[in-house]
């Protein structure tokens, strides 16, 4: 499916119940992508600060959300590297 078509269909408001349920599943999907990307970034050696900058949030916010969710085997620096 072409990108513009997706946007039109997901934003279709003629059937709100289907739309709302789709949005809730989309949110699950987006959150799982975010988790996956944060893990990949930390594995690649990026710092919490760099991850936060890319997501457009504060370092504290991204750390609070993901510190316990990420794979515990990822070696994350305790302190933000300068």
């Amino acid at each position, binding site marked *: 499916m072409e990108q513009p078509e997706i946007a*039109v269909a997901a934003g279709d408001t003629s059937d709100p119940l289907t739309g709302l349920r789709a949005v*809730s599943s989309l949110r699950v999907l987006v*959150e799982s992508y975010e988790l996956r990307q944060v893990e990949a970034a930390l594995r690649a050696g990026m710092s919490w600060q760099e991850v936060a900058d890319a997501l457009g949030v504060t370092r504290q916010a991204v750390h609070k959300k993901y510190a316990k969710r990420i794979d515990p085997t990822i070696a994350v620096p305790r302190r933000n590297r300068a």
Partner: protein
Amino acid sequence: MSRLTDAVVLSQQIVVTATEEAYRAGHAELDLDHLLVALTAVGGPAGEVLRSLGATVDRTRAAVAQVHADRLARAGVPAPAAQPRDLPRGGGGLPWSPRADRVLTAGRWEMPSADDRPILRALVRDPSGFVAEALAVLDLDPDRVVAAADAWAPAPTTPSGELVSPDPRPWRTVTRTGWVPAAPADVWSLVTDPARRTAWDPWYASVEEREDGVLVATLVGEQQGAKPVRAGFERQEVVPVAREEGRLVEWELRRPDRPGGAPVQRLAVALTASGDGTRVDLTVRWLRRGGWRAVVGTLVRPVAGLLWGQMLLAKHAAIARALR
């Protein structure tokens, strides 16, 4: 075990299993879909009800994935291919969604008994419609599920025989019983395969089989990110002492680096077919030693019993995890 302990163990199993489901699916929090799958995977009444209606672990897992995919498809978004995450050793941690928290709390109020049907009822009633959609994929009507839950009556499985091999010595014994969603033959091949020992025995970092059939195990220590192991305790020999093909296996655990001083200790796994899964009885037993150790042993006995029980529950959880 008391009913309260059974109830605590069951709710713990549900939370741990649901968390693992969410982790494996790559989701960022524990939600209703994972709780539904968890109910089918643990040995509680709700699981018996669901499986009797055809909602097995695999089918339920596929159904909840289907609901997400269908919801996205109806809105014109192609569903992405599943990208399961590997579960780290010791499991991963995830927060609960507020509604999963509500459903679990609903179950807990009615729990002094080991009955997870209140959780199932709360799931079926969930206003978001997710669980109802998953049940529809499984060709199940919510009212039928609730009716089956109401009609459920306990039908305990009695063990297939003795839980340990015959030995007249005065053993101290601790047993924990659990249920796993796999056939006895599958559980048997898991627990008797030295190469898969570390998959279900969380004590061991590595296990190798010697030519005489004895397993030489290295305990999980600092290298695996755990607490360091005391000197002389790093290695264990796991010596087979009894084997009834497909039903009972027992090992004696020895510490080759501590000549003479180590107590005699055994671990037994007994299997019984139960519904569409297996009842697993894990028993650890040991011989009392003389001298000052006997006095200390008597004093710490209640605590030791609890700790052994926890150790057996951890092994049971790992067996279930390896077979889900």
